[in-house]
């Protein structure tokens, strides 16, 4: 089987002896063109892997920042079809940076799971993180995804014990995402100690790379967590910059894109130092 973009990326980073920076932005936030501009600038700004949020009306696992991003994107007319189009547009210029779609199951279920997997692969999506599909529901998406060659990134959390970890890993692919806090995105700051214990436990049971995310906001956080994980995810802190650079009508400040990418640059420095 050919090496996937995700595998290739982690192999390259291993040679550079550093962890990956994974950035999260919501597709279509605050509008399609601005979001695509950010997406296209992310690899040069230093993002190694891109998580692209699929907006959903009821983002139950997200804190206020990403909830608001979802609403902005939906208000601007974003849909699952347009999210895939955005990935297609990105792929015309970048064939190597992995793109992971992150979201909730209902829009995929309504799109039609098989059709969605097919269209997403064709668009150039490398993996999916669907937060409301625990391993108990793997037959819904994870198993068909794996069969079609789409990575299905599973989550482990502070409430996951060893026995569940085995169950989670059974159909996991791409990498494993360790949720560093019990809570929603962009709220409490995680403590390094317990996260390291959890990541070490995960490493004993799998060779998949381990990413850590939820509550990681600053270059200092990124530097610290990059020491213990193969990848560090920053979401809400980036999304907050978008929120701070739109006017009351939701229109983007002309400097929005560069401000987001400058911030990503500081995070990228942190994984490289």
């Amino acid at each position, binding site marked *: 089987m050919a090496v996937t973009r995700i595998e290739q990326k982690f192999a390259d980073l291993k040679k550079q002896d550093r962890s990956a920076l994974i950035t999260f932005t919501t597709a279509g936030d605050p509008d399609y063109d601005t979001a695509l501009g950010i997406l296209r600038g992310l690899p040069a700004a230093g993002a190694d892997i891109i998580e692209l949020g699929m907006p959903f009306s009821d983002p*139950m696992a997200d804190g206020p920042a990403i909830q608001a991003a979802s609403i902005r994107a939906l208000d601007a007319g974003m849909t699952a079809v347009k999210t895939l189009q955005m990935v297609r547009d990105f792929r015309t210029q970048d064939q190597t940076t992995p793109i992971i779609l992150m979201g909730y199951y209902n829009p995929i279920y*309504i799109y039609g799971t098989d059709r969605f997997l097919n269209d997403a692969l064709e668009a150039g999506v490398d993996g999916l993180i669907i937060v409301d599909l*625990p391993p108990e529901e793997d037959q819904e998406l994870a198993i068909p995804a794996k069969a079609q060659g789409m990575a299905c990134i599973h989550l*482990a959390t502070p*409430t996951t014990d060893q026995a*569940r970890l085995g169950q989670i890993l059974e159909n996991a692919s791409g990498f494993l995402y360790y949720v560093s806090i019990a809570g929603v995105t962009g709220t409490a700051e995680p403590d390094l100690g317990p996260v390291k214990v959890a990541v070490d436990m995960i490493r004993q049971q799998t060779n998949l790379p381990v990413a850590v995310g939820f509550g990681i906001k600053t270059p200092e956080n990124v530097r610290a967590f990059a020491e213990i994980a193969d990848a560090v995810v920053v979401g809400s802190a980036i999304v907050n910059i978008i929120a701070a650079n739109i006017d009351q009508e939701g229109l983007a400040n002309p400097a929005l894109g560069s401000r987001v990418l400058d911030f990503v640059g500081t995070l990228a420095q942190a994984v490289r130092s």
Partner: protein
Amino acid sequence: MTKNTYRAGPDSDGRFGIFGGRFVSETLMPLILDLEKAYQASKTDPDFQAEFDYLLAEFVGRPSPLYLAERLTEHLGGAKIYFKREELNHTGAHKINNCIGQILLARRMGKTRIIAETGAGQHGVATATVCARFGMKCVIYMGEKDIERQKPNVFRMKLLGADVVPVTCGSQSLKDAMNEAMRDWVANVDDTFYIIGTAAGPHPYPELVRDFQSIIGTETRTQIMEKEGRLPDSLVACVGGGSNAIGLFHPFLDDDIAMYGVEAAGYGIDTDKHAASLTGGRPGVLHGNRTYLLMDDDGQITEAHSISAGLDYPGIGPEHSWLHEIKRVTYVPITDKEALSAFQLCCEYEGIIPALESAHAIAYVIKLAPTLPKDHIMVMNLSGRGDKDIFTVATALGTEI
């Protein structure tokens, strides 16, 4: 081989046919597995059952009467109509039955903090009540729009010691309150128990809420046998999430009895302002279960509308979705307008002010009963009392209080 039954669900994956399931984040998954274990153990624990029965009798005031609605029967000139008087329960609705069951589970699991979502405020009041009774901390999530239209219940919850948190995101009603409660739960996994108010959510909630509410149907069965010497011919109940309906229906599912679940059609199901998820929605995944939901073509959940805050939810419990698809229960829509005139008729003919939720069931009784013979026995669940709704009704009737 066991005999064919409609009462065996859910299966071990929490499914009723394709509906139900456990669509929650991994953080919550170990908690709902613990809950399932605790619930299964409670079912065979005589002490648990005895305490549940004791509280229903002495604290809630059960059994609730099965009352012959004589004047309404006469006025409609058809079927003989009985009301199951759940509105006479402590706190004024059926919601308390489930809250008693769940708080006993919470205590059994060593939890000390309770969270809940509420729409009309009936479930919030019932939850705050059991929290006060058991000395537990109580946080109620309620949409800002609902706080505005259900002020008396908000004040009741506060009197009972609950912290009522306004939810300002989305449509500011029940679905958003449920989102916010789930966010709280995920951040407070160690000490917190989530008392879901309806027969929906991730497995095992639809099952355990149904079982706690089945006291309604079980009592009805005994009472109708005493009064009529036979089972009823039809059952009618309103359906938002569907806990009062499933509580009445479930003990009768294997009997030859027609059942009608009444959905809130708001301004009409041909408008975009209704809450009839079975009549106007399609299967999708939200709040931990697969069920019928109101949504757009992209799978974004749309806002429901009903004059009744308790029915103002874009989904329905998964067992109802299944009963709908296998055609065991007939689900029918009733508009705001029809519910309002049924509300008035019930006041005038029976001396009972019904909840706007229950008024939807009455409205269907008004349509159906005249078409049936006089020996047809119909039982309708009068699930809640309407004191909380008088401001809404006054506004709708153009009256100032």
